């Protein structure tokens, strides 16, 4: 499926301007002048797509409609039918329960175990099925002699227009080099120069090249190593068992979770002295109908669980739209095209083969510029399905760094476009922004603790680190920095805490609140667990069939 012939003319223009563009560099937009383009074109600023929450700790704050529905959602369980103290007792009784087994959850589980805790790691799909596995570009750490954690701090704050929590950013930048070292000691193969020094690439918004990569399979490399380590250390883990509600104790501490076996619908009760949520992001909610780079399971489950035990969420009103994701072919619509592509020298071009923005603008700014180029200026390239996009000029990379650079540094991209007969070493990629990252999340502290005792958070599910716009290479750092911190803090907390009697009273109270607000009847059931992609048959069942289903026949997912 090479490009349709009508795109040839535009591709010729890209080729014709390439020689001239070798030396052409557009100015970056100063941080104080970003707001006009963001306000006019960034999806976060489309007012109608957000609404105020009517219940819960963030009542009165605005968030995308798709997330608001779930945060105001109904519980899947009836607390009168599950008594964690009586019923059949609990299925697991551990010190630390980690929910979610991506980079953050696996790191938390490893460190919690090292700190002496008995750990249970549970996950909705397979061990390692998470957004972590798909990150390509790499991980920031200021380890070069001409770099410093203070510059990393400045870049991170500026990239987010200074909306981040300064204490969280300090923890992020100071832990970064030791995270790189920790992963290497576990066997991660970082890209290096022949003398062993790290080969860093500059991503958008970095003043010094600071991004550590493993070709463009960085997340895959890190995740398969962590997964192997979890298995090698015999950490107990349960797959296909998402959490559907947290369990509290009578002292108001989080003390476990209700899981469900996704295939049999059987509930599994876990008693835990501490619970770490590492459930990842939100992309599969397809905010504003955007395609997403996210994993199949990215449905905001952890936000829902935490919200229901009274934990506030921060920066609910911004999502990250990654500026460069595949717009063609349709089969890979939304596929992430790593920022490393721009870091290596690919420019972003319109239908005339001309630049319209600096390729290393922060993600929110570049996404807004691309949308402006297509929607306002009409300089995008339309695909046969009506999707519009602009060019990302990958062949320029080989012109700058020598032939073979693209093949060596971007093998996943070469392979993935190659499957559809597009050779990105010779032809540009057609790209458009896609929903990529949940900037905000559960309110938490640098040690991984949240305002709710017994509840800890790490990874994409938490918020504050990246403020209202995240820099590339910082989320993958966040995973390991705060995964390790949350694991350590949770394990120490578990040693000291005196758990009380388990209860699901908070679910009763939540349902009462929903009812009083008139929402119980109109809101969906949450957490969502999986997106609804399967085509459903029309409703042909008699009402009594639905009513008479036995408990074991109720489909939860």
């Amino acid at each position: 499926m090479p490009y349709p012939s009508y795109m040839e003319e535009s591709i010729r223009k890209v080729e014709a301007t390439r020689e001239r563009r070798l030396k052409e560099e557009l100015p970056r937009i100063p941080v104080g002048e970003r707001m006009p383009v963001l306000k006019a074109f960034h999806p976060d600023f489309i007012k109608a797509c957000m609404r105020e929450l009517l219940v819960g700790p963030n009542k009165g704050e605005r968030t995308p409609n798709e997330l608001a529905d779930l945060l105001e959602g109904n519980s899947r369980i009836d607390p009168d039918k599950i008594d964690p103290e009586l019923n059949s007792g609990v299925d697991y009784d551990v010190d630390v329960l980690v929910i979610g087994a991506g980079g953050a959850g696996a790191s938390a589980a490893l460190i919690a175990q090292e700190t002496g805790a008995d750990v249970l790691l549970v996950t909705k799909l397979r061990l390692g099925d998470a957004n972590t596995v798909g990150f390509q570009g790499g991980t920031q750490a200021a380890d070069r002699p001409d770099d410093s954690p203070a510059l990393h701090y400045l870049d991170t704050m500026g990239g987010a227009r200074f909306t981040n929590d300064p204490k969280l950013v300090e923890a992020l930048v100071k832990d970064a080099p030791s995270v790189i070292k920790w992963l290497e000691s576990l066997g991660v193969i970082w890209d290096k120069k022949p003398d062993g020094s790290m080969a860093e690439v500059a991503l958008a918004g970095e003043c010094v090249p600071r991004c550590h990569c493993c070709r463009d399979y960085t997340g895959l490399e890190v995740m398969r190593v962590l997964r192997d380590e979890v298995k090698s250390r015999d950490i107990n883990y349960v797959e296909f068992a998402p959490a559907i509600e947290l369990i509290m104790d009578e002292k108001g501490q989080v003390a476990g979770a209700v899981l469900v076996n996704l295939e049999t619908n059987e509930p599994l009760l876990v008693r835990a002295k501490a619970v770490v949520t590492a459930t990842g992001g939100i992309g599969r909610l397809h905010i504003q109908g955007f395609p997403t780079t996210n994993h199949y399971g990215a449905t905001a489950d952890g936000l829902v669980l935490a919200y229901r035990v009274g934990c506030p969420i921060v920066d609910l009103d911004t999502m990250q739209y990654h500026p460069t994701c595949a717009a063609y072919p349709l089969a890979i619509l939304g596929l992430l095209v790593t920022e490393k592509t721009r870091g290596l020298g690919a420019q972003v071009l319109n239908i005339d083969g001309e630049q319209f923005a600096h390729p290393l603008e922060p993600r929110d700014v570049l996404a807004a510029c691309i949308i402006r180029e297509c929607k306002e200026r009409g300089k995008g390239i339309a695909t046969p399905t009506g999707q519009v996009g602009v060019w990302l000029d990958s062949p320029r990379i080989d012109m700058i760094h020598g032939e073979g650079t693209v093949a060596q540094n971007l093998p996943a991209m070469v392979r993935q476009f190659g499957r559809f007969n597009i050779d990105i070493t010779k032809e540009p990629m057609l790209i458009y922004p896609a929903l990529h990252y949940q900037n905000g999340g559960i309110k938490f502290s640098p040690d991984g603790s949240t305002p709710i005792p017994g509840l800890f958070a790490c990874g994409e599910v938490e918020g504050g680190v990246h403020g209202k716009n995240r820099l590339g290479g910082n989320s993958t750092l966040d995973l390991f920095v705060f995964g390790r911190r949350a694991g350590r803090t949770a394990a120490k907390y578990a040693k000291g805490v005196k758990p009380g009697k388990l209860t699901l009273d908070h679910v009763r109270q939540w349902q009462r609140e929903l009812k009083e607000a008139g929402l119980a009847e109109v809101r969906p059931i949450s957490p969502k667990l999986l997106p609804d992609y399967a085509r459903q048959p029309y409703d042909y069942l008699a009402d009594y069939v639905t009513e008479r289903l036995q408990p074991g026949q109720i489909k939860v997912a």
Partner: protein
Amino acid sequence: MLDIYIMGKRYQVPEGLTIQAAMEYCGYRLIRGCGCRAAFCGACGTVYNFKNDPTLRYALACQKLVEQDMYLTQIPFFPAAKPSYDLEKMEPTGEQILKIYPELITCFGCNNCTKSCPQDLEVMWYMSDALRGDIKEVAIKSFDCIMCGLCAARCPQGLVPYNIALLCRRLYGRYVTPRSKHLDDRIAEIEEGKFDAEIKELQNMSLEELRQRFDKRKILKE
């Protein structure tokens, strides 16, 4: 519309769908065999053939487009050997690999593993590199492995090439690649508190001062 067959049953689907999307179009709700949907996670390694051509083909269900008369199935899970080990107590040698995976010597080079790899890796060749103890070559040849498990599913000897490769890569990353001195130096500097004062200064600045410092910072190219 195309005719496809899911576990032997005929369905009609539009052109241009991946195997995964086609199954969803037919009403299947995927729980197993679906992950990142972007060819990184290895959840959806699958086999297929055609109504009138029994030869097995291999692909990722999230990438492969459906074709007329395709016969599809799902391979949800394939049990695989994965011994526990402590990387800290190991050496990057061929003996070490054989100690953990002694069955490696039973590979007789049938090449089914290579033929089944949806990433087009030279699986059989890295297995023979592993047998020779050439850890570096295994690491290079296997680096793009997404651990979908198709090689293990097709191995007549019950070997698990992707786990053997993973052990080799971990040993290579841990013991063979040269250390990065500037990384170690920086960790020591941070532990000594070298950057604390500067970060504190940034934290104490007014928003306007911080903004000016940010806009005036020098941007290095290389």
